[in-house]
């Protein structure tokens, strides 16, 4: 029995249990213990992942689990993302009385779920990871018990999430019925030469794609996204908006790209519809928002539409570009929500568009970093967001869908408007809020690195791109 690929997961599980016990025993003054232990967990997991880095796909736990370059690279980015989330959220959580062991435990359980998702090679493990992630996220959103908005958001998230899981399971059962296997590898082999049961198979794929679209937040399955992003405490929104997207990408790639690879003709057309609708609705609806978190929620929808462009290409190039897109998106999302957290303080959320007015006068440096983030989200060079868009567009043109590329750039033109509006507020307008910015030094440093990475990766995009392409090529 092969165990090495599962070591990071085992380590994280052990550490979460440890944190749970320790945190129960200490009082409020010693919360930094949980904080520090969380970083130890992430560092240890990163070490284990690097130590046993899989250069070739390795099946473990009797085929339930796979360790390949794709999963290992994505796991490393997951650790990084979660670490940045912890740094950004600390002060925010502390002043709101949420700085408790529960947050760290839930975040790490969610991480464990994501790790299982990216490494799953079996419908059971995929679903297990997804549910572990989702349940942790539902609880995180509801963590602020005295906030009715947050509770409502958690409720919506839970109900719609459960519905999506149900759809997914139903679709999986149909596919199981056709192929007779829950393992992605066996499924791919069974479907290689076609099947007589095309109708049940396509029927199943429809439900699987719908479930996936729910989890990604693609139109028309996006309804939960704005409410949850808006209602959840910003630290939780930051978490939901970053790492889980990476895991969701892996989830889609595993099911569609590996298990149902031969059915690309069936699911491509579905993804085309999802992608076009997401880019259209996400970008148009974002214009109307006055709340920054809600605006980012719609922007996320449109970004997921863009990422789907890479996946629907159905080629290794396309998967590589989608992977690049989702990693870049996670980086930008961290920066965007992180900035809201940095500007917030006790009793002030800084999540209205007007709260960013005149930021250039209050803090030229933070304004500059936000400027980079906004132009990156809009896909304007020389920021890395441009290369993300370029790579998915290239994948789409490669399969001959030039019209789709044209549609995508036109929607991104609409999107440019609301990103520019943030820059306008920061640079052209006078500040309304003149209170000093109280962000802690470590959060500022991380934010600087985050923002400058957007620019640095824009000037030298090759390394990250090479990592993505290599990870995909070596895993397929």
């Amino acid at each position, binding site marked *: 029995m092969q165990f090495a690929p599962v070591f990071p997961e085992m380590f994280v599980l052990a550490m979460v249990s440890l944190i749970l016990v320790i945190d129960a025993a200490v009082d409020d003054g010693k919360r930094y213990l949980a904080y520090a232990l969380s970083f130890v967990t992430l560092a240890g997991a990163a070490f284990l992942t690097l130590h046993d880095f899989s250069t070739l796909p390795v099946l473990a736990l009797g085929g339930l689990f796979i360790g390949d370059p794709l999963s290992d690279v994505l796991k490393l980015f997951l650790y990084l993302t979660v670490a940045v989330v912890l740094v950004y959220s600390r002060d925010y959580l502390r002043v709101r009385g949420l700085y408790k062991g529960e947050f760290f435990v839930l975040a790490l359980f969610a991480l464990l779920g994501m790790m299982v998702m990216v490494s799953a090679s079996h419908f059971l493990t995929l679903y297990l990871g997804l549910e572990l992630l989702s349940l942790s996220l539902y609880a995180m959103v509801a963590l602020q018990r005295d906030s009715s908005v947050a509770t409502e958001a958690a409720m919506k998230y839970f109900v719609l999430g459960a519905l999506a899981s149900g759809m997914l399971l139903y679709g999986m059962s149909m596919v199981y019925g056709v192929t007779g296997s829950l393992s992605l590898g066996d499924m791919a082999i069974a479907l290689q030469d076609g099947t007589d049961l095309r109708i049940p198979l396509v029927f199943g794929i429809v439900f699987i794609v719908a479930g996936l679209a729910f989890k990604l937040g693609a139109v028309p399955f996006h309804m939960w996204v704005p409410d949850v992003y808006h209602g959840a405490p910003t630290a939780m929104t930051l978490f939901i908006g970053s790492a889980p997207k990476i895991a969701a990408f892996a989830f889609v790639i595993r099911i569609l790209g590996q298990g149902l690879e031969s059915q690309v003709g069936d699911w491509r057309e579905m993804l085309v519809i999802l992608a076009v609708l997401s880019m259209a609705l996400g970008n148009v609806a974002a214009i109307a928002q006055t709340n920054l978190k809600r605006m980012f929620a719609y922007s996320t929808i449109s970004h997921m539409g863009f990422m789907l462009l890479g996946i629907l290409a159905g080629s290794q190039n396309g998967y590589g570009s989608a992977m690049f897109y989702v990693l870049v998106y996670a980086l930008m999302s961290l920066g965007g929500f992180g900035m809201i957290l940095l500007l917030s303080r006790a009793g002030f959320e800084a999540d209205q568009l007007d709260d960013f007015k005149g930021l250039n006068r209050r803090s030229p440096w933070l304004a500059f970093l936000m400027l980079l983030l906004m132009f990156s989200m809009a896909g304007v060079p020389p920021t890395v967001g441009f290369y993300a868009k370029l790579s998915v567009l290239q994948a789409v043109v490669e399969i001959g869908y030039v019209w789709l590329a044209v549609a995508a*750039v036109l929607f991104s033109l609409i999107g440019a408007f609301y990103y520019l509006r943030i820059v*306008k507020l920061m640079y052209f307008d006078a500040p309304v809020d003149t209170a000093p910015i109280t962000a802690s030094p470590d959060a500022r440093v991380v934010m600087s690195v985050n923002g400058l990475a957007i620019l640095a990766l824009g000037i030298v995009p090759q390394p990250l791109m090479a990592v993505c392409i290599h990870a995909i090529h070596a895993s397929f």
Partner: protein
Amino acid sequence: MLNNLLSLVIWVPILAGVIVLATGSDRNAALARWLALAGALLGLIVAIPLATGFDTATSAMQFVEKAAWIPAFNVHYHLGVDGISMPLILLNSFITVLVVIAGWQVIQDKVAQYMAAFLIMSGLINGVFAALDGILFYVFFEGMLIPLYLIVGVWGGPNRVYAAFKFFLYTLLGSLLMLVSMIYLYFQSGGSFDIQTWHTTALGMTAQTLMFFAFLLAFGVKVPMWPVHTWLPDAHVEAPTGGSVVLAAITLKVGAYGFLRFILPIVPDASHELAWFVILLSLTAVAYIGLVALVQADMKKLIAYSSIAHMGFVTLGFFLFNPLGAEGGLVQMISHGFVSAALFLCIGVMYDRLHSRQIKDYGGLVNKMPVFAAFFMLFAMANAGLPATSGFVGEFMVIMAATQVNFWFAFVAATTLILGAAYTLWMYKRVVFGAVSNPHVEEMRDISLREILLLGVLAVCVLVMGLYPKPFTDVMHASMVDLLAHVAQSKLP
């Protein structure tokens, strides 16, 4: 050193901009100004060897640099200049120095950011002219929008937000479609983003036509061509003086440059087929926009419309497909760079004193500002296309070329000689001549030494180019002849 000349031309201003930015708040404004001037001058100095070391006998790319940049996409850091792009780089580096000096006293708010924005933009524009790789070109082409957006929006006039958005979104629309065309070309050319490879890539007529329109939108918006010109008057009016100067003198040239580097050589058959379309738009710009300029009450708006009309000559010259017309267009580009820069500086001089751009607020300026009036006169004449000024040369060449193709093209184009003189000189008369019209004008002081220096340098350029244009045409001749020979060959498979 000489091997990396183009890199220096691009990166020196950008680095200088970053250094200026680092001086921080307005407490260090003086330092920021001097650093900016040093950076701009250094940028000009490193650009001069491009002219002195330029071989006018060849149409091949010179000062070439090539290194792998994004191997995943086969994108290279590939730079080079020919007779078309080299003069534009010099023009840009030169104008940057003027812009820094022009903003010396006027800009008192966020000085470091202002100067840095111009320096960084200058480097990016040099990159646009030097890039020989499609993606590299696009990065510079789009990247320059960011500083320009901030310049218009932060230091602009009352309606600056509208102008900045309009300008940004308009230009983004065009360039995004160009991006799709570039990706398409990448696959058609067998996986290359090299612009010179695209020049030889065979393309069917449908693809050529679609790409023609995508590129036309991208570059036509920048030029700007009628009817996608409407962002320009807004941006010009709201931008600070330096912003207007760069917009008129440089960024419009980026659009025209795109015609020569992309549209004509990449889609030659569609260009021939649809030349009538571009010529129609160009002539509309010349005649109709000339009339629009006539009725403007705002001086900046008047010059903005006059820019559109003059750029109509440039595109007209390019699509006549003969060397005289194409070279005339390029000469007109350079000349317009000088003249429009000078006119916007003149308006800036007046605006700094009276804080109005309305023609009716002025009158009798010559009584109080005789030296300024003399300079203004020269530039107004150049704008009207008076012989012996640079404005005459390009227009004359294009009209001559148009006569060879079709008499009526030349006839409509020649209306500019009347209209241009009418709107420019009429404005000049109302602003400068006559008795002193109001007490505010009475208080105006003549131009300072700094302003004399600014306008004097441009006056020399305008006159030299008007009296002896041969050095300019010599530089571009080989490249232009080669380009036209290339365009004459069909690329249909």
